[in-house]
């Protein structure tokens, strides 16, 4: 429909923003508008795609379902290509990325006073990386973006974090790197095995997926992919980096971490893991389901015991992502669309919750549950949003998370009823800790006098937009599900 390299622009526009920050590096007043300008431009582009793209035909040269496609030689010796493509799934993820980046910038608008330029530089850099992960279809290119997005997060946590920020940053980095390096080996393995079998040595996903690996090594290769993705997810038992990273990260970092970085793991599994190794993946389904269910229950249980709001929300993330994993494991169209929808929902809801915790923290300098109480009376607007998103997180019908979880369970129930049955408990458990959270923070009588001004215009507008999105997905998820229909059908092999 258009000859503009839109996908390249999507990836490199934030990077261009990074470069534009250099001349005004030490002028805080100039840095913030420029950075935000680029982020908003990116959001506008993504938003425009969200509106127009679903109606587009398949791009020339692209497999079915991809309406934007860019393919160029990159490192020909290895058969590595600069291959980008956008289907419904990447579209949703890309739009989420652009949106959450703006949110992250907005929440740190006042909070970050030191080394502001570096902060926005890193956020933009990360946006580039994450966008690349969601759009790359060449395994090496994907791996490149996958690693690139690690670096800014490491610095965000390490520089602007709280508490044991350095420990958390290093732990986060090493954990994810260890997993992804094994994935790199698996990528090379796939390349060689596929090349030996078919004669074409390539890293391009469409070609690799056409002739799935039927080698004895396939389970090992899938295992390596799964490990890398499971760490990002994070699935039980490799989730231990997450509470530390989330808790010690600055608000913007937490928002991006929860809303975007965790999604890359799930996305990777959907986009690469299953299509590359359909057979091996089926063999892993029981394991994945069990880990997902255990993660859901375990995370809820641990979340209830937390005294730190941020840690509680962090553990709730583990639980929610467990649902996503469960949906992917069942690999049925309904559950898979539910999972992807749930990824968006989790991004919005948890992102908003982290933003709210950040706002409270900014005002009172504490995240201890025990320090709060009576927020409802002091800052009613803030409290309202807090309640709304907490309830959304707990899966209240009519709000966004419910739609995702419902679809996942509906889908899983057909394939593995036992897992679904146990996971139903997982729907109830979040309610317990959410109620505790809400009760202790909002409705408990004030335990100590808190300086709690209500939301500012900036914060209010931000939360209102998030709430609007949350409610509208909750009430009317059809537009998003329509976008997902084609790619999900293609992935699960149920296309007409």
């Amino acid at each position, binding site marked *: 429909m258009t000859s503009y390299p839109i996908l390249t622009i999507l990836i490199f526009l934030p990077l261009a923003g990074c470069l534009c920050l250099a001349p005004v*590096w030490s002028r805080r007043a100039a840095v913030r508008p420029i950075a935000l300008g680029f982020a908003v431009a990116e959001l506008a582009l993504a938003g425009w795609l969200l509106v127009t793209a679903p109606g587009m035909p398949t791009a020339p040269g692209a497999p079915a379902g991809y309406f934007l496609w860019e393919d160029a030689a*990159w*490192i*020909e*010796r*290895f058969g590595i290509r600069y291959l980008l493509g956008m289907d419904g799934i990447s579209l949703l993820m890309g739009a989420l990325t652009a949106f959450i980046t703006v949110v992250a910038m907005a929440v740190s608008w006042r909070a970050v006073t030191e*080394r502001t330029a*570096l902060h926005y530089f890193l956020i933009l850099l990360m946006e580039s990386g994450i966008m690349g992960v969601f759009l790359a279809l060449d395994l*090496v290119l994907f*791996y*490149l973006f996958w*690693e*690139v997005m*690690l*670096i800014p997060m*490491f*610095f965000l946590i*390490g*520089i602007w974090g709280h508490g044991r*920020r*350095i420990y958390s*940053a*290093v732990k986060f*980095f*090493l954990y994810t*790197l*260890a997993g992804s*390096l*094994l994935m*790199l*080996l698996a990528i*090379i*393995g796939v*390349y*060689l095995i596929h090349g030996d079998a078919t004669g074409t040595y390539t890293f391009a996903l469409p070609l690799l997926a056409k002739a799935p690996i039927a080698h004895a090594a396939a389970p090992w290769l899938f295992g390596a992919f799964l490990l890398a993705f499971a760490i990002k997810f994070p699935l039980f038992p490799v989730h231990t980096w997450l509470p530390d990273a989330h808790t010690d990260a600055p608000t913007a970092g937490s928002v991006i971490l929860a809303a975007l970085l965790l999604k890359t793991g799930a996305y990777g599994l959907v986009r690469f893991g299953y299509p590359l190794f359909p057979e091996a993946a089926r063999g892993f389904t029981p394991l994945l389901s069990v880990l997902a269910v255990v993660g859901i229950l375990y995370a809820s249980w641990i979340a209830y015991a937390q005294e730190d709001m941020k840690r509680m929300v962090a553990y709730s993330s583990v639980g929610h992502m467990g649902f996503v994993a469960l949906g992917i494991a069942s690999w049925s169209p309904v559950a898979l669309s539910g999972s992807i929808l749930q990824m968006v929902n989790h991004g919005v809801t948890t992102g908003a919750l982290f933003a709210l915790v950040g706002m409270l923290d900014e005002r009172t300098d504490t995240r201890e549950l025990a320090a709060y109480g009576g927020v409802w009376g002091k800052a009613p607007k803030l409290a309202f949003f807090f309640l709304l998103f907490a309830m959304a997180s707990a899966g209240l019908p009519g709000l966004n998370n419910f739609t995702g979880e419902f679809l996942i369970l509906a889908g899983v129930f057909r394939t593995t009823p036992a897992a679904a049955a146990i996971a139903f408990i997982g729907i109830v458990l979040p309610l317990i800790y959410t109620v505790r959270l809400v009760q202790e923070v909002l409705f408990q009588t004030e335990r100590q006098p808190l300086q709690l001004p209500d939301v500012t215009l900036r914060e209010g507008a931000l939360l209102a937009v998030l709430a609007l999105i949350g409610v509208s997905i909750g009430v009317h998820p059809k537009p998003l599900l329509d976008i997902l229909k084609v790619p999900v059908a293609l992935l699960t092999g149920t296309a007409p």
Partner: protein
Amino acid sequence: METIAIPAINFAPIMPEVILSIFAMVLLLVNVFVPSEHKAYLGYLSLVGLIVAGFTLIGGWGVPLSAFNDSVVRDNFSIFFKGIFLLTVGMSILISDQYFKREECNLGELYPLLLFATVGMMLMASGTDLMTIFLGLEVLSVSLYILAGFNRANVKSNEAGLKYFLLGAFSTGFLLYGMALTYGATGTTRVVKIAEYVSQNGVVAQNPMFVIGMLLMAVGFSFKIAAAPFHMWTPDVYEGAPTPMTAFMSAGPKAAGFAAFMRVAIIAFPSLKADWSDLLWILAVLTMTIGNLIALNQDNIKRMLAYSSIAHAGYALVGFTAGNAEGTAGILFYMLSYAFMNIGAFAIIVLVGKKGEANNNVMDYAGFGTKHPVLALAMAVFLFSLAGMPPTAGFIGKFYLFSGAIKAGYVWLAIIGVLNSAASVYYYLRVMVYMYMKDPVEEFDWMKLTPAVAICIIIAVVGVLLPGVVPAFLLNLAQQAVLL
């Protein structure tokens, strides 16, 4: 009386060596006639020599030529390595002037010695006779012993020079003994002839003299590339030697060692690949693991990079073990990238350091990121490249090496390699933690970025990032170079 028939002599294959030798001798003479405050000009003159030598290299690409009765050869393999050497020496010279001025031992002998060392390395890369290789090795080593102890006023530098000399002489003995035994077993020192002998005499493993000769040569070369368990000299020498010389030693001679080792192992003993591989497998695992583990708790950044350089030799050995086109070309690519990233990092160390080799601890980098954002960014780029993160040359290099290993069936070796590389990230991150996440203790106001050092850093950054993003050109060169 009949005259002795003189074989045809063709200087073309050793043209760069000849030019550099002439420049070195001219520098030696100029040096004694130039007052000490103008020693910097010697540096520029030696750079000119390197560039001229570089020009004579380019023409030989793709036109193999051997001379002096087949004892030296000009092929793509040697040209690629010679390019690495010229680059390494050039960058080290760029950072030398500032360092040695600060240490107040800016002696003119530095530059001729560096050029002689380069000549030695080049002979190692292009020698196809055990004797030529040995000759090159000695020219290199003797220059290096002096360079390591060049800072005469500094005790540690003296220690480095002496230690390097003793252990270097020891390892040379091993190597020479191995060469002698190989000669005894095969009756020739020509690498090609040895290969012929090996292929004609089938199971050579039954000839103990030959096997021992081979093993001793492997030990000798392992010393030179600092492969564990023959790495003991590295940390002390790297820590004590003047920083620019450490930069040089970690990149240049290591590459030269690999060049000679590869020439001997891959050409002379191709049919013994299986036996070599078992040996190299163990060497690679030990080298990577020991290097990385000990680097984890080093506080002195030079020492840390010394251990890391052991680990990097280990990664290169992974490609060596694989022994296929990917693995060997991977070594070439990796050695080039390593020169860029490591010398770049050492350039920053030169800048941050104070007189008397002070301020070389990781803790001294606290707050460097806030005080000098651009330099710190450059350092971060080098460190990420050393850690093998994309999109840097370090990543492509490791990718190349490990894919070679997997292709050759050494999956476990590749897995050990990546686990090592994950562990190594910790100590590189540690520097970054100090640079960016700790509050500055010092103002870093003594730092002075001279144009020469700036050029070196720019070259290094470009050399790290460009091949990381568009590696096709260099990959092709490396691939052509190992066709031999």
